[in-house]
């Protein structure tokens, strides 16, 4: 792996931030709008007949859920959207006609996902503090653990959607937006797992983020994080990430069998 090629690819996706409102709105505008919307909705819900402590827990849980959902969303978007960006720009052949290796491309998109997610968090964390006095740092040392687990989830979602696009062509690009959406109702992001219908709960139990959001709510309620939950979450993430990466590489090999020219 060559650092100069990873640097080149990072520049490729950082330069447009200077002038592309689409990218900035994905990173800044929509997360802030979500924060405002969910914060106000949470405040309204919590004011309806609950005591002050319970109301506070509700709003903090919703906003923390929102912040870590953005970590998943941005991490997956950097993997899959960066691939789509090359396809939309008619640049895929150009890139893979250079010495660039697939593992270097993968490393650069993972690095970009951390950089861009951090930019989003740098805005969201102060926003929820100033708007709703919700302090993300109350999660303490668990923040990097939750961040890592949700980032891993974003990565495997990204590799699966990028793999589907490489396998079936740009007509399948809708998976980039729809696949993460499947996780929303099953991951117990904004509500406890127990609130889900019993028939759906087994599905939620095989999704790694369910354990992270459950752990996060336990912490917010003053409880202790269950180590087995974290172990299951990381275990599932490692298995899914391994499968997603294998699928992506297989899809890449398949697309070179048909030729990257079919994406022009």
């Amino acid at each position: 792996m060559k650092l100069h090629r990873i640097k080149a690819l990072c520049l490729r996706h950082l330069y447009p931030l200077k002038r592309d409102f689409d990218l900035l709105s994905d990173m800044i505008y929509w997360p802030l709008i979500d924060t405002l919307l969910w914060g106000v909705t949470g405040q309204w819900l919590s004011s309806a007949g609950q005591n002050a402590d319970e109301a506070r827990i509700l709003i903090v849980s919703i906003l923390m859920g929102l912040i870590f959902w953005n970590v998943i969303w941005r991490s997956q978007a950097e993997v899959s959207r960066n691939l789509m960006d090359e396809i939309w720009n008619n640049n895929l052949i150009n890139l893979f006609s250079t010495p660039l290796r697939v593992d270097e491309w993968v490393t650069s998109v993972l690095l970009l996902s951390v950089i861009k997610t951090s930019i989003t968090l740098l805005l969201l964390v102060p926003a929820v503090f100033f708007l709703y006095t919700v302090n993300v740092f109350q999660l303490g040392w668990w923040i990097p653990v939750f961040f890592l687990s949700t980032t891993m989830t974003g990565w495997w979602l990204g590799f699966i959607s990028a793999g589907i696009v490489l396998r079936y062509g740009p007509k399948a690009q809708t998976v980039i937006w729809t696949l993460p959406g499947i996780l929303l109702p099953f991951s117990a992001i904004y509500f406890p797992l127990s609130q889900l219908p019993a028939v759906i709960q087994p599905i939620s139990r095989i999704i790694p983020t369910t354990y992270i959001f459950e752990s996060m709510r336990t912490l917010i309620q003053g409880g202790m994080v269950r180590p087995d939950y974290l172990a299951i979450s990381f275990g599932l993430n490692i298995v899914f990430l391994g499968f997603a990466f294998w699928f992506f590489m297989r899809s890449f090999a398949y697309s070179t069998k048909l030729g990257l020219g079919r994406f022009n």
Partner: protein
Amino acid sequence: MNKILEVTGLTKIYPAEKKGKKPFTAVDNISFSIDEGQIIGLLGPNGAGKSTTISMLLGNLSATSGKISYFGKEFNENRSEVLNQVTFASTYIKMPWRLTVMENLRIYAFLYGVSEKTFQSRAKKFLTFFGVWNQRDKTMNNLSAGQITRIMLAKAFIPHPKVVLLDEPTASLDPDIAHQVRAFVKEQQAEYNTSVLYTSHNMDEVADLCERVLFLKEGKIIANDTPEKLAQSLNTAHMTLRIEDGLKRVTRFCKEQSLEVEISKRDARITIDEQQIATFLILLASEGITYSQIAIDTPTLEDYFLSVSTPTS
């Protein structure tokens, strides 16, 4: 001469799209080589397999069978190392449109390991040569097709590669700029001994630039020779006579001799075997047909292209 690129038995068969359909052979067992510093033309009608061959030579399409080696190294096993010295430019492939010219060129220079300082000096040199230096801070979507093509060429030559694959680099250019591009390619070849594989639909351009031409048809190489020899292989010439007396007799006489003739005002354009011209003119004189001017066009590469491009089925 060092062999820079060696292709042996290269074949690409696309699997059948649907059940009941046959697999499609795009490139069929082709073999050729390029020596250091050679400019080779890759010609053929649409669908002959030129782009498929170039895609396999760049590794963005896997071959069904056959072997590609650059600089004596197996391509598939040394892809990244080999491609560090092989670049590519095509009129039909673009660069990210939201990036400026310099941003794009810098990214590609870095991909080939060119330092920032070297990049700056080479980018200035090439963009100035192509007359687009004042466009360097514009985003790609603000450039004309011709300007983009020239920037793609700069992208290909900034790393000082040993081999450049150029896919119709002058397709969208005005004649003066196309001439400039040809001069540039020749200059790079002379200065750095760069080998070039060049595809174009402009036969004069290929005849001017390339010392050898590979002619592809239906996935097979049907000719591999110099442009002159390919043209000469036709034997047919076009002879134009300005007839003073006997225009009708010329038409009749050519028909008798089974020769193709086109009449335009007083001119008769006759397609004839070069070696029969003298005999034909003697016979014409014996028929009492007189002419005031004669022009003989020997066969060109374009004539060769037209003669062999007709599909066989």
